[in-house]
């Protein structure tokens, strides 16, 4: 029955209000867990003694010096990319030296390339050399009206048994930081 009630919130109102907030929080938590489960879905990849769990739904390709290259086509701007490359090196070459060679190569290939930071780190108990850098990705087609993207990159270079394995992460400057956790999950899955 319709009744008139212009009073301040009753106890029942308060409980109803709290229940709405609780239901919304539960729904969002469920959404967060579901999001995490979707993002952690992966496809196993193995090539030339290197294996990794590539995010499900990403576009996989090989070539251009990469054992594997996986692109997230849903990214805004430059597509977020993971890549693994392998290079034979002399037995006494360190991870830092292999990374320097890789960096020199990138500086010649990429537009506006700048190293932002480099350091030795441990990844899953293995020593690696981490290089953070930035470059500009521009469509070589001069008639393209797209504004070039500023891309942030990060390489982890490992040396093992005369092989330098580089795991790379490239993402649009706005997507780099939010996507770092997912990349770290990918990095942890790399076995060689």
């Amino acid at each position, binding site marked *: 029955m319709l009744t*008139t009630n212009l009073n301040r919130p009753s106890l029942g109102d308060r409980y109803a209000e709290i229940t709405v907030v609780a239901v919304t929080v539960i729904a969002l938590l469920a959404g967060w867990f579901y999001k995490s489960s979707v993002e952690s879905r992966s496809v196993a990849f193995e090539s030339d003694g290197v294996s990794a769990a590539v995010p499900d739904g990403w576009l996989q390709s090989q070539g251009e010096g990469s054992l594997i290259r996986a692109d997230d086509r849903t990214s805004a701007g430059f597509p977020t990319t993971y890549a693994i490359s392998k290079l034979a090196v002399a037995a006494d070459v360190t991870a830092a030296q292999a990374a320097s060679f890789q960096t020199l190569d990138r500086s010649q290939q990429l537009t506006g390339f700048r190293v932002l930071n480099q350091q030795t780190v441990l990844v899953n108990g293995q020593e690696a050399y981490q290089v953070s850098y930035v470059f500009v990705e521009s469509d070589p087609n001069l008639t393209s009206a797209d504004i070039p993207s500023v891309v942030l990159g990060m390489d982890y270079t490992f040396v093992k048994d005369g092989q330098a394995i580089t795991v790379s992460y490239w993402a649009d400057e706005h997507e780099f930081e939010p996507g770092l956790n997912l990349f770290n999950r990918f990095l942890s899955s790399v076995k060689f």
Partner: protein
Amino acid sequence: MTESKALQERKHVWRAEFLLIVSLIVFVGVVYALDGALKPVFTSSTLLLTGVFLALVPAAIWLTFFYLQDRAEPEPKHFVLGIFGLGALLAAAVGVPLVESVFRVSHWIYADTLTTILGGILVVGFVQEFLKYAAVRYSIYHSAEFDEPTDGVIYATAAGLGYATVLNIQFVVSNGGVDLGAGVIRMAVVALAQAAFSAITGYFLGRAKFESEQVWWMPLGITLAAVANGLFNWLRGRVVQSGGISLTGASANPWLGLALAAFVALGVTAIVLSLVRRNIRSAQVAK
């Protein structure tokens, strides 16, 4: 407020809802036809400004009809505009950042059908419907101006159109302007959908205030609106892409999305109207 006022159906509210649907379809048709006939050339800034202007049109249409019809028992203009602004503010300050930056839905929600539906309900639906509920519940709800059940629909629709306006402006700005034809269809779809789901929340809000409902009543309303929101977005994606793939590429038909949005908005409005009528009849019998 008098009890008899609580029993009013307020036909003009429903007329404004129906006129919004019809007018938006006419508006889309006119803009689409003008775009096709005149083929206007825009600079990047005029394209952006035109897009932002078009994003404001759905709310302007509803507010105009509402006030033209609401002469017998007018709601204070500043309250309705205030709730519209609050809905827009909550969308810009909380809703859009939460959905786009925290949940980053565009990165995972299209993984598969189940994900599109569940993500659409649990994240997009609940965020949007809770914020529209909050815009009304924590502002006008305990005011003397919220003095009949239908006010829930009025104020929730205002909040929903505020939310829709921000979604449309965000779409225009993030794309640096929009194609007039397809862009105006998308704006109408967003406005119709948000208005329809708000009507569900508004109906539950109105009854929550004036009837002794159980504690689960309002959570049920938000959940129903969120489910409708999520299912609509999934269905719209299916309908718009139903053109299939040809040798010239995938074809999308945004008109089908508009038809679906109009159908859903009409359906929801008719259902809410019939529920309000039924409540009034029950109350009159009880008297």
